[in-house]
């Protein structure tokens, strides 16, 4: 019984961690102030 509880706790923790990370996602950022280029850049 104790083993079953321990295994369930591990499983729940794994789901909780993954769901939290995916729910947080990644920041969208902001639009770059750099213009669309109309001259040939010297380097990348």
């Amino acid at each position, binding site marked *: 019984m104790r083993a079953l509880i*321990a295994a369930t706790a591990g499983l729940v923790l*794994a789901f909780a961690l993954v769901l939290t*990370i*995916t729910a947080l996602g990644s920041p969208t950022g902001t639009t*770059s102030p750099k213009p669309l280029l109309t001259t*040939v850049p010297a380097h990348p």
Partner: protein
Amino acid sequence: MRRKTSLVLLALAVFFAALSPLLRHYAFPRLAKIPAGQYQDMVLEAKDATLLDYGTMKAKTVPRVTIVQTLKGNVEASEQVEKTAGKDVVVWDGLSYVVGPDGKMVSRIPERYIFDAHTQQPVHAPGEMVDGDPVKREGIEFKWPFLTEKRDYEYFDAQARVTAPIHYKGTQNFRGVEVYYFEQTIPWTKVPFPKALPVQGITPESVAKTGTTRWYTTVRKFWVEPLTGAPVYGEEIHREELRGGSLLGGREKVTAFAGHVKMREDYIAHTVDLVKSNRTLVLLMTSYLPWGFLGLGALLLSLSLYLEARGRRPGEAEPAKDAEPAPVTA
């Protein structure tokens, strides 16, 4: 104590074993996406190209034609589209700016490409356009999906405004990176004149009145890193002709542009470095961490079972139970 440790190890073993497939099949598809605010530029060159001189209306060979391509993620526009699309969307405002050997503009084609940030499938929303003309893209453009497959894809051609298959032609090694090679051929197709022409006073409408039409064909080649879906190199064998009408002075056709367009060397090196570092991140999510966690889970489970087995060795005295108080007789 040994029993408690084995239970903790068992919980950790299940935690890591479960984390392995969850990370690969649940978290990765949701976390891997193109950032909405990404900005990137690219320079391509066609050496010894043929270019039409609009002054004399004759084609001539020039040492170099340069194409500057910029893609700029429009975060505000993507948030607007996301409200109706109900998914993560990227809006790229792009500009293909072609420069002649004298540094003057040959053509400029703006476009807006809207797509799913995770799958790179096009999303249709107001504002989607090529050179000001509304379009409804099918298929991919500029970038392949994460975990690109060895198969043909549908690829949007912005010049012809058509979608056509781009064929998987094999796996190659490009500067130490394993890449999938794709090729698309667009046969001679009548295409609209760019809204901005290099000669002042000439507009697409005034050219249309002369009866002259613009035709285009290309062989498009991409070398794509399959984990990130990012092209590390690209080439195009591109030809444009003007055909018929009074503009050509009785000639049947004249070459407007012909050249073998290739990425500039410094941009190739930069792209390869960038893709290599992004590739490591994808590998971390799809391979290194899932397999590592699975191995760790197996190790912890073995350790837990070992401790449990040691705790139950035959012949070893059972843990002493609390002695019951002896009955007291009065």
